[in-house]
């Protein structure tokens, strides 16, 4: 079991990178130091496999910025 800032991952030696990231983004909600809205955006993008370029991420962050800066 590997632990990163409170995010616990199971033994990952036989997993692919995608499987490891699946688990990571799910577990990220347990990290209280990360804004929950940000987490849900990241999880959503990862599920759509849209975190391989920053285009979608920047777009979502723009929306978050506008929403939270009101």
């Amino acid at each position: 079991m590997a632990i990163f800032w409170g995010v616990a991952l199971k033994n990952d030696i036989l997993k692919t990178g995608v499987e490891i990231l699946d688990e990571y983004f799910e577990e990220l909600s347990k990290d209280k130091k990360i804004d929950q809205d940000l987490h849900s955006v990241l999880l959503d993008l990862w599920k759509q496999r849209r975190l391989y370029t920053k285009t979608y991420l920047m777009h979502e962050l723009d929306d978050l910025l506008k929403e939270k800066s009101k």
Partner: protein
Amino acid sequence: MSEPSVKLKKLSLLNFRGARDLIDLNLGSRCKSCAIFGNNAEGKSTFTHALEWFFSGKIAWLRGEGISDEDIVNLASSEEDDTSVNLVFNKSELNSLKDYDKKKRRSGHSNKTQVFTNYIENEARYDRLYLDQHTILWFLSRTKGEKKAEIAKIVGYEDIVKVKSVFSSTVRDLERDRRLWEAKKSLEDNRGILTKEIYGEAINDTKELLAKSQDLLRIFGYKKALTNLDELDEAIKEAIQLLPSQERAEERVDLERIKERIGKLDKKQDFTSLVSGWVSNFNILLKDQETVKKLKMDEFLRQAERVLIDSPEIENCPLCEQPIESQEELLGKVIERYRKLIEIRDKLKTHGSELADIKSELEEIERECSEISEGLKKRKIPHDSEAVKEYKTLISKTIQLMERGFNDRKIVLIDYKVIKKQVEGIKLVLQAVTLELSKKISDLAITKEEEEKQVAYNKIVRGKRLVLDNISHKKVISVFGLLIQGLRRVENQLLELQNHVMQQILDLISDDVNKFFCDLNKKENVKNVKLELKGEEGIEFSLEFYDNEASPPKKYLSESQLNSLGIAFFLAAVKKFNKSNKFFVLDDVLLSFDKNYRLRLLDLLDENFYDYQIFLLTHEEYWFQMMKRKFPNWIFKEVYWDFNNGIRFKDLKFDPLDNIGNKLARGEKVGNELRTYIEALLKEICFALEVKLTFRFGMDNERRMIGEMFSALTSSLKKHQSNIQDNKDYKELEVSNFVSTCASHHNPDLVSPGDIEETIEKTGKFRKLFVCPKGKMVERRNNVPGQNKISCKCGCLQIDWKE
């Protein structure tokens, strides 16, 4: 992770790279391993490239300027010919033909099934299938960051690396975002204004804003406590009613501005001196009218100067045809006249630019007069508008006179008396207006209390706007901070995650890298080879070289050691990470390897990859022969190439002795090659029969002369009461002229072709005494039970041998 199991039954190429006609590499139903021999540029690597193109759609070697997809097509093929690579696997559902459409410049697989698509796009995507010298050097020379990325790709962790890099890049973008920087800058600027010009300190929130505004509202008699921004807005509306009249204030400002303008104009009204200086100088210049008229002659004189310099032999003037008495004198005169014209032209140019400046100043005076006149009209101040108009007309006329004179190159005549009279008139008009303006301004002045109210009001309104702006800026900065902090946290976690999984992989692969490297470098003092994470973003090989840590390895290792490190890494990666394919290609990887390395590599493959399908490509005949003996069950092919036919396989029964014979028949010198072959044959026989030879150190032990080995072999055969040493075929080679020449250090290439031909035949017969028809050597360890004989491995050839 399931065990990889895909192997190749057949590889067929058509019009692909070096292959012109269809060439099939049949590997049989048992998917045998294969060794391919061919000299450089005979097309061996075409097979590697075919696999690379089939699996990845590109050929790493064919990258760079001037190279396109079309370069996979055989040069000798025609436009209509198909270009394809066809692979037949042990799993028929994966069989596919990949072809290249020259017209559409597109390639595609014939197998469109989901199974095949999944295989090619996912399962086999990162399998290590081919290694060549270029790739070894490329990998070893990468930076530690690039090595990490490459290894991540091999083990399927590329996704983590990619996603992590997206976070890194996004964090950087957010940190540099224009909105963030503008908010930070505005916040600072506004704080400065609030401190210096409004409250004497920087106000940060609504509560403080309300408190400060309440203080300022006292001057308006406002006593209610402000509890929110709506109340502040109401208070501002009430305050505005108590301000001095806006209209009055505006009129006062207007009148002050007109008065200021008149004050400025007073110093410039009399433009006589501005004009007279220029007019006087210009008129002096124009007095020499004759010279001015000749200005157009300057080009003519310039040409004349050139003619006189370029043609010193000219006798008559080309214009008037009068004889030229002294060309030198004439040239002097021409130059003098030409220079005079140039001077005048320069002066005129100066006058032109001065006139432009004067015109600009006069127009400025004219404009000021117009604006003063309009301002007075607007504020209904009585004044002599006709006098102003006449003054403006005078300015326009003066400009016209000067411009006309300058353009026509004529004397400029200005009536200064008229100017003086007009100027005095306008002065009187403006003096009267100034008196009237002063009186009016005085009437419109506001009281000190009114002024204080105005200042307080301005501070309240401006302060409110700046504080609210700052609250908004702080919010933007705070949200940016929240997102950047979160994303950076994810970035760091991904980096740690990446390093954690990578370290597991490195630990896993390092054992094999170390084992394979040490197997290849048995006698070297190199140990503990491993891959280590270096810093946050990189991976590098480390090892102990004579008990010293060596990282990066190129600091200490030789070219061949580095080469073997690359091979060890590739093989370890194949063993640990290939998910689908149980085959791989080593394409001429032994560039700087000596014989020992080569044998060790074959041993390594035999011990660790016996269940893999291996393709060994080499241009070294000796190593190819080694492979034949080491792996008798493999398929062996020799390739050659010509432009029209492309790659072809030679007859598979390759015999180096036949090859030497063929070369001799072509008239080539083969003496040294024949000696090398006989030496190698004797070495193998001595090794197989455990013939005792004097021990020597190092490479000297490898260097054995034919005579020395013959002598030891004969002694050993006699000692073991064999029947071979007396055989006619044995004796004939032993006592041949060729062997004697080699034994006496003479150059065997000096032996006559007839003798060499005979020796080749004798060597063939001699070989048959020890090597069976299946190519197996008689070995001392193969005792024939119950008989004083030893045999080859298959037992078909026996010789007397008593222990």
